[in-house]
């Protein structure tokens, strides 16, 4: 195994037996997944509900036994060294798992003790995390009184209390208001800056795009494509540049010029504007403006729009992620 791989899986599979009318049926939730998560990165596992994200995360945290396949987590064998994995990985499930009738502090102290820390260290860590996640104003209240964002902070603090090198986060911001999401994104980035590797499942495109270094898109129990957000987006095709001119005549001239000078996937003129599909549009834009200026073709406005991960999902699955949510 390569030194800096934190998670490495080969053909990880999970089937459940579901009882239905007329007998038992095997349901394949995860259909053979190969993952490589590098040290220090935020790895996003992006897909719709029921794609197999949580099942994969539960296998990696030792909560579920894989039906077949192999995996190494922090260099430990998932099948044989579960104790070591549990001790060194932090895990936050979708439900969170805070004890709602206990206070935040009680939750944190017990969690630290479960990882084998003595009571003094446990209390020290609990105070540190209360400070760090700005929980001091509510941490002594029972968790059932917390807002969604406050509870999520406690959940993540519980997962981090023993300072793990790897944190598994299952849909950390689902159901949160925009401010709470932004706050958590900031905290997740801080964890990465401290050297923690983060494996994050999400069904939000913007979250994967903003946070992740690498994204694997999972659909129907299979990884469809893996890459950096930029790679994935550029795989869909280039950016769209729209130049607006004062007259249709100028626009026509500009189209002719651009067709001669550059390799665009598509150039099209409508009314006063030229639409251009091009790779790396952001870098190309200044050059193109200079080119047009040199021929005295005065540009009024330029718009650049980049492909989104929505387009990526659409390209590889043939469906929009949002459509799935509406079902």
């Amino acid at each position, binding site marked *: 195994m390569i030194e800096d791989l934190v998670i490495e899986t080969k053909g990880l599979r999970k089937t459940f037996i579901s009882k239905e009318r007329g007998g038992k049926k095997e349901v394949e939730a995860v259909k053979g997944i190969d993952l490589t998560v590098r040290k220090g990165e935020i790895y996003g596992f992006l897909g719709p509900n029921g794609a197999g994200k949580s099942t994969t995360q539960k296998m990696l945290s030792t909560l579920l036994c894989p039906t077949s396949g192999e995996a190494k987590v922090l260099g430990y064998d998932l099948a044989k060294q579960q104790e070591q994995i549990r001790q060194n990985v932090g895990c936050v499930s979708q*439900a969170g798992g805070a004890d709602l009738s*206990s206070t935040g502090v009680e939750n944190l102290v017990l969690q630290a003790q*479960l990882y084998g820390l003595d009571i003094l260290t446990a209390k020290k860590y609990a105070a540190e995390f209360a400070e760090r996640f700005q929980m001091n104003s509510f941490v002594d209240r029972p968790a059932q009184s917390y807002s969604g964002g406050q509870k999520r902070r406690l959940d993540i603090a519980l997962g981090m209390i023993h300072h793990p090198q790897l944190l598994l986060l299952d849909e950390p911001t689902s159901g949160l208001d925009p401010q709470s999401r932004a706050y958590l994104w900031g905290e997740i980035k801080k964890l990465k800056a401290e050297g923690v590797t983060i494996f994050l499942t999400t069904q939000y495109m913007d979250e994967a795009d903003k946070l992740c270094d690498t994204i694997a898109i999972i659909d129907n129990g299979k990884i469809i494509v893996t890459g950096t957000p930029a790679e994935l987006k550029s795989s869909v095709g280039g950016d769209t540049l729209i130049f607006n001119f004062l007259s249709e005549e100028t626009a026509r001239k500009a189209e002719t010029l651009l067709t001669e000078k550059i390799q665009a996937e598509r150039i099209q003129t409508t009314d006063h504007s030229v639409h251009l599909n091009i790779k790396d549009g952001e870098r190309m834009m200044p050059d193109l403006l200079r080119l047009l200026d040199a021929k005295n073709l005065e540009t009024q406005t330029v718009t650049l729009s980049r492909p989104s991960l929505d387009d990526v999902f659409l390209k590889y699955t043939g469906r929009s992620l949002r459509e799935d949510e509406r079902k």
Partner: protein
Amino acid sequence: MKMLHDTKLMFIRNMQHTLRSPIFVFVSMFQPLMYLLLFMPLLNGLGGVPGLPSGKTVDVFIPGLLVLQALFGSAFVGFSLIDDIRTGVIERFLVTPVKRPAILLGRVLRDALVLLIQCVLITLVAIPFGLSVNVGGFFLSLLLYALIGITMASISYGFALIYKIEDPLAPTLNTITLPLSLLSGIILPLALAPIWLQDLAKINPFSYAVNAARALFAGNFQNIGIAEGFIVIGVLAIVVFLWGLRSLKKMAS
């Protein structure tokens, strides 16, 4: 060592939950107190029938009543576990290095302690009603009640872990506890029963517990029933605890 440490942590955690609303420790004593106040007087009139020596009905009834409390008082603890499953608390525990048996042990030991407090209180209440009890026998009987409590709590947790929802839990537990209590000679002595019913009671582990508890209260330490009661309930407690543990481990498989 780690098992002991983890069990202690889990026991304290569950005890904190109980102490947060201690009133329920007393609420669940309501049923046996009702039996004591509203049913035991009926038995006094029956004194002299087989199994109920006249003038001593309270001495026979109370040890059985405590078995009843151990059966019903501990049978419904599974509901608290379902709450912990639903909020993800159990999953959170399972991904820490905590020893699996400690998660259940911490709970059943808490349940046993709560039960013992109830047993002592019920016995104290029964003394003005004329209860005479052998002190050494009483303390030994507490161990027996604790084992019954652990047995019933383990069954309750086992089903809670299998169902994971409340709806089927209560009917299941009622279906188990009712025949067990009827076939143990708690309410009325089995000596009154027809032979087939007495034979049926012989396969009920809790009828051995009732015999043992009555012998202990009376201080009849030579009675072979005491050893029988401890062995039967001790083995049963271990078996059902391991079954409950299996359900817990199955949750993560």
